[in-house]
């Protein structure tokens, strides 16, 4: 049981972005990926979810042994993969509650519907954890939300959908420290031995609140360095140049 990424190559027309990426996330683990701009961090999250802008040219992604690369976007989600978006989209006219109900209903056998009472009870409990006002249930998905509210809404979805593996794509970007604490608390509440996390971030700050077990450095479409949580501190302090130098030295 794991999320296994094997020698993953992906491109947009005319440019390869992921160049043989390998990574295995076991349930219970929190992995962080850090890397400079343009290293392929956001591409990785979108490729895993099946965004049609990216073409996978080779490699495999196994979710508990099942290759998900042949699956449609929605199938991957139902198989247990979740992406907290860096820039969550607005869906005018669709209320948050209806959206979540539709997402949960899609996981039930055909013809079955969710128990509305249980649903709202759970929803309200999760919203309380994230300090979200009840009015967010009837508001249109992300429409008119502040940056911090959008990120909280992503974590709310994570909490409601309870995926096996969750990818957080720069969830910390645009958050002030209070919002960051709330969002991190939500994520930490979802940490369990049955769930793996991949936390993609540009800044070490997030990792003070969501403490990773393993930190990877992504550069030029590959994982080039892996270490413990201290690695994040080193990267914050020294930047990425030393990683490059090590790579060059190793290649020489």
């Amino acid at each position, binding site marked *: 049981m794991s999320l296994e990424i094997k020698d993953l190559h992906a491109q947009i027309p005319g440019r390869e972005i992921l160049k043989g990426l390998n990574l295995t996330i076991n349930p219970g683990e929190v992995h962080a990926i850090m890397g400079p701009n343009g290293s392929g961090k956001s591409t990785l999250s979108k490729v895993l979810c099946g965004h049609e802008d990216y073409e996978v040219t080779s490699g495999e992604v196994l979710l508990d042994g099942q290759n998900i690369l042949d699956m449609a*976007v929605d199938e991957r*989600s139902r198989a247990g993969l979740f*992406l907290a978006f860096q820039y969550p*989209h607005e869906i*005018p006219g*669709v209320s948050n509650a209806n959206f979540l109900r539709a997402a949960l209903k899609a*996981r039930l056998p055909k013809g079955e519907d969710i128990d509305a009472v249980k649903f709202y009870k759970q929803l309200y409990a999760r919203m309380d954890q994230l300090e979200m006002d009840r009015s967010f249930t009837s508001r249109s*998905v992300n429409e008119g939300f502040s940056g911090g509210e959008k990120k909280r809404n992503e974590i709310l979805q994570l909490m409601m959908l309870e995926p096996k593996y969750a990818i957080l794509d720069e969830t910390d970007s645009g958050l002030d420290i209070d919002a960051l604490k709330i969002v991190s608390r939500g994520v930490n509440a979802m940490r369990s031995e049955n769930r793996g996390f991949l936390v993609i971030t540009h800044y070490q700050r997030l990792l003070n609140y969501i403490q990773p077990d393993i930190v990877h450095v992504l550069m030029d479409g590959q994982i080039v360095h892996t270490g413990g949580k201290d690695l994040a501190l080193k990267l914050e302090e020294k930047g990425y140049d030393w990683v490059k130098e090590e790579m060059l030295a190793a290649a020489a």
Partner: protein
Amino acid sequence: MPSDTPTGLLSIAPARSTSTPAWFTTRSNAAWAEFQSLPLPGLKDEHWRYSNAKKIELADHAPAKTPTAEQSKAALAATEGLKERAARFVFVNDTLVESDTSGLPAGVVCVSFEEALKSHEAALQQHFMKGDLPLGSGKFAALHLAHVKAGTVIIVPKNVVIEKPVEIFHWVVGDHAAIFPHTLVVTGDHAQVSVVDHYRSLEGEGGLSIAIADLVGGSGSQITYAACQELADDAQALHLSSITAGRDASVKSFQVQLGAAFSRSESVSDLVGQGARSDMLSVSLPIGDQIVDQRTLQRHKAPHATSDLLYKNALYGKSRTVFSGLIIVDEGAHYTDAYQTCRNLLNSNDAEANSLPGLEINADQVKCSHGSTSGPIADEELFYLKARGIPDIESRRLIVEGFLADVIERFGNSEVLDTLVARIDEKLVRAE
């Protein structure tokens, strides 16, 4: 078999009984003569741009026959209607088959058109088809006047508030049958009423409905009106409505176009009193080869009035919509707020939405805007929903429902809305 001899509605003279009031017979006869003399609007007629008056096949239709007992029974069985209502009328082929006015407050006139001709002549003479029909269907309106015998006349006296809606069902049955439903709503000062007209086909056969609805709002009164057109797939529908909003009156009208091969609505709002307000709303969901043709006019004749139009079309298949809207602000109609928005969601590459927005401002201190947009569902919106495990078809439906939601919310009348939303959802499932 080509022939120059006029057939169908082109040649069948209306029959009027001897008990019809003389003034009405005179107008009806004059209308018949007018219908015959007026040319069919041509393709170059500005009011028919991107459309075609020949889509209303006059020669192929004849006035609907009096329904059989079975047909009336079947129509009544199919009329689900609202649980909570002030009154209900059911017509089949322009024949009244049921009326229930038990929920009306005292003093309200709410009678069939036929009855009104006998009992409320004065009101009819004052209000019946007094509009100037500026949007291109003069010929069809004349035909309506020549044949009209069914519909509802509602006169709400001063200060009377009717809480629950008045529901009217117009069923058409029989191949090539034409009906001419008429609705007249007149409110006294500070009166309130909501009225829903349903246009439906009893069997899957083509038919033609040429309907007119005139709404006259007295000072400070409120009228809510919905026209829900769900005729059979190969039917043709024309709905001509005029709204006259007096001082501080508020009229909200909602066009729901779901049926017919060709449907055209012409909606005119005249803001004649200071502080008047007209909300003009519409939703359509054309599929297959359906054509929805929408013409609107907002005329500001008094200062400090507001008109706000929001039309939304979700197109599927090879369907086509035409929206042509004009705002005219008269000299002296200062401090006008007039808005016009038409938005089209294209769910297919073969669907086509045409928009012709227009503005004519002759006053100062006005706030006016008009605009139209057309486009497919944004890829990123769809990706977001699918990334939460919602299948493609459900995701698209959620987005379309969301697209239509603000029009529906603005209508706001919950009893009426529940059934309309259910009908829209049924159509959405068909669209897929």
